[in-house]
């Protein structure tokens, strides 16, 4: 069966989606990403959809699910590369991504994820002395 490759870069997983994304493939990606977040301990997931020339409500929902799922697994998701025409259509269609972060391109998306990783990492180490004092 077809699978979408998931690349690992540092603490992040990177996925690039292309035009002929059918429903089953999107669902497989959702499961694969969840497994990879757990097995790699990734803190960030970047999904590049610059190759998609349309995002309908099903694909939109799967992308939203992925973001929520990864959040539950302690990883931040950023969707990048949304084309203007796709964005306009999504809004008109009525898809709302309340928990989905977006960035203009891969570079900004990675910067956002790095920022998130660097924000969460020191906090954990800062917690330790506090715990020791108690």
């Amino acid at each position, binding site marked *: 069966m077809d699978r979408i490759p998931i690349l690992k870069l540092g603490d992040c997983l990177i996925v690039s989606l292309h035009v002929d994304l*059918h429903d089953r493939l999107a669902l497989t990606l959702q499961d694969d990403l969840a497994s990879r977040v757990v097995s790699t301990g990734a803190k960030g997931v970047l999904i590049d959809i610059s190759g998609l*020339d349309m995002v309908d409500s099903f694909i939109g929902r799967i992308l939203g699910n992925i973001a929520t799922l990864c959040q539950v697994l302690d990883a931040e998701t950023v969707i990048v590369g949304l084309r203007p025409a796709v964005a306009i*259509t999504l809004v008109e*269609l*009525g898809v709302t991504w309340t928990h989905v972060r977006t960035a203009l391109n891969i570079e900004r998306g990675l910067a956002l994820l790095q920022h998130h990783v660097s924000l969460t990492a020191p906090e954990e180490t800062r917690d330790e002395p506090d715990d020791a004092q108690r």
Partner: protein
Amino acid sequence: MTSQTTPRGEVLPVHSEDDVVRVRQAVRQCALAVGFSLVDQTKLVTAASELARNVLVHGHGGQVRLDVLASPRIGIQLVFEDQGPGIPDLERALQEGFSTGGGLGLGLSGSRRLMNEFRIQSQPGDTRVTVIKWKA
């Protein structure tokens, strides 16, 4: 909708997810050939994807007829047909957020917003959704 269609009507089967993808591609090619703007192409393809999925999921398969309209304006007409159980409460089905298929419930209401004309008729064994996008 008393529009005339060109004889170049194309009928595409919708019996699998791959067919849904093929419908998107055929509609995209047609919209490109007719000269739709990129935004209108995207709206048309997205609506086609929603409605083709409905045919597959709710209608247990069917077909799409794709026609280029020449009069009164240039446009693309898509007719989605299935012989499934039909939609018992059309008004409710057209409401935003109403879904029986485990989706977002944006298929019908959303595609109606993306198109210029939207007509639906449904009874058990015969559901037909006709949509038109006019060239701006």
